[in-house]
């Protein structure tokens, strides 16, 4: 259908395309094209260029240092901590978001009542200001008057100064990150569940796979595999970009226990003004994002070619 339409456009265009249509195209797309150049392409190139210099923000001079920023980054204790912490954070947030999102989606779909209500409740954190909610989390986790320690004390669980202890700070940030992304995973999984054709369940019924667990194993989970890979990538990208909670709740502390990639980028570029160094971190972040996006494109392509 689409291919047909396109070929109609092609034939028409071969006859009519002329100066007028090209002019119209550039007039309509021109402002966007210029702005994409000025605000995306050139700044992107500039980051790559700055990353090879020793420039300090505001300095009048700079010199080319090649890959020196990258070699010193990987030798830098704080940056290695940032990479390590980000990896740990991602490894905590992504599996818990996926498992919880999928389980809750299955549970919501397993019944008819209150579906929209449960979906809305679990989705709410995804669309609220994480900056404002981080402040609320700080109150919840307050060592003496916070709800968490009050409840834990009441039921005999250990209490702690959650955000000021090296052992607990990353897991706590991961819980907040999971709390925020859960709704997104849930909604994507719900859409995936709705897209499973009823025929598959009927066929499984005929084959004798009619128990709840059988249906889950034979039909539901295999059908969700492409969606799951997709959710995995989207949630991973979000987890790599964690910033607000670090900036507001910990500033990378205690010590360097919660420094993460984007916080390191922010601090080097805009607080320490070691701009070349900060740009090198931006390049590393970009490489990670592009790698994940390429994986995502491959997933989407294989999905569309299959259907």
């Amino acid at each position: 259908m689409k291919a047909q339409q396109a070929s109609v456009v092609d034939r028409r265009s071969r006859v009519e395309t002329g100066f007028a249509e090209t002019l119209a195209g550039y007039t309509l797309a021109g402002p966007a094209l210029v702005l994409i150049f000025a605000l995306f392409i050139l700044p992107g190139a500039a980051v790559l260029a700055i990353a090879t210099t020793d420039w300090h923000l505001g300095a009048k001079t700079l010199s080319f240092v090649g890959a020196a920023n990258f070699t010193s980054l990987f030798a830098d204790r704080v940056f290695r901590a940032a990479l390590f912490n980000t990896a740990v954070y991602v490894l905590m947030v992504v599996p818990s978001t996926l498992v919880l999102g999928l389980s809750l989606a299955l549970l919501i779909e397993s019944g008819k009542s209150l579906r929209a209500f449960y979906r809305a409740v679990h989705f709410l954190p995804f669309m609220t200001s994480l900056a404002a909610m981080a402040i609320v989390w700080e109150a919840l986790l307050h060592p003496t008057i916070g709800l968490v320690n009050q409840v834990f004390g009441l039921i005999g669980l250990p209490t702690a100064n959650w955000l000021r202890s090296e052992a607990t700070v990353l897991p706590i940030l991961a819980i907040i990150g999971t709390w925020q992304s859960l709704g997104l995973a849930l909604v994507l999984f719900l859409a995936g569940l709705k897209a499973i054709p009823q025929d598959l369940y009927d066929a499984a019924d005929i084959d004798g796979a009619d128990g709840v667990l059988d249906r889950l194993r034979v039909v539901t989970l295999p059908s969700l595999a492409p969606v799951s890979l997709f959710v995995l990538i989207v949630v991973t990208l979000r987890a790599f970009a964690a910033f607000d909670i670090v900036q507001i709740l910990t500033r990378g502390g205690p010590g360097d226990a919660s420094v993460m990639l984007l916080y390191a980028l922010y601090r080097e570029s805009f607080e320490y003004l070691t701009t070349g160094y900060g740009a090198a971190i931006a390049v590393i972040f970009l490489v990670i994002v592009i790698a994940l996006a390429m994986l995502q494109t491959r997933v989407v392509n294989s999905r569309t070619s299959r259907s």
Partner: protein
Amino acid sequence: MTLPMKILAGAVRHAILLTTGSLVLAPFVWMVSLSLKPPAELFSSSFTLLPQHWFAVENYARALTEAPLPRYMLNGVIVCAAILLLQIMICAPAAYALAKVRFAGRQVMFGFVLIGLLIPHQVLALPLFILCYGLGIFNTYAALIFPFVVSPFGIFLFRQFFMSIPDDIVHAARLDGLSELSIVWRIMLPMSLPAVLAFSIVSVVSHWNDLFWPLLVVRSQEFMPPSLGIVTFANAEAGNDYGPLMAGATVVVAPLVISFLAAQRWFIEGLTAGSIK
């Protein structure tokens, strides 16, 4: 399944979902609860949802007067509205050109849109910061708005919708003597309202909630959008005076939560589409 089993399964489903749901909502409930309480009750070891002495008026009054909270909210409205209007004005014609107009370089341009879609904003923060400084718009509304006036995601989304509109409609409009721009405004956009709505929600939610960019380019309170404003308020309000702070957080979060409850389906569909960029 037998009937008793079905009832049991239903009860278990509700029990689990109500539990996870309350855990997810706990921060919101706690926020509103603290915003109603006087300082003395914050420190009492027995916690209750509702205050013994209502202190809501005092807390909200302090939040609205001691911090320029109304100013932050107004800034949020100004910045989000300006960004959204400019984005639609710039992206819709470009998307129409990419979908319906044949011109040399169209594929190359779409390639640039895809590159723009791929680059996370934080990577570009440094050059854009320098650009804003160079243009002399540092610490103004313009610095908050300018880097976002073109949205590759918007172009991409609108292009997809425009492509599904039959060419015949475009031809008919051209025969009627409509200019290309009026085809965009009077035919393409009205026929793509779901895309416009989804994009508007993504745009407003992300800029109302954004902290990273405002943190870089705005220093004075008179330009701060809500998220940066509430963080500034929290830093100034050192100590444990949570009442006004939680009242402030409630005020910052409320507009989007209320809109969400009013138009749930649109928010969920829009933001899910937005996450896929």
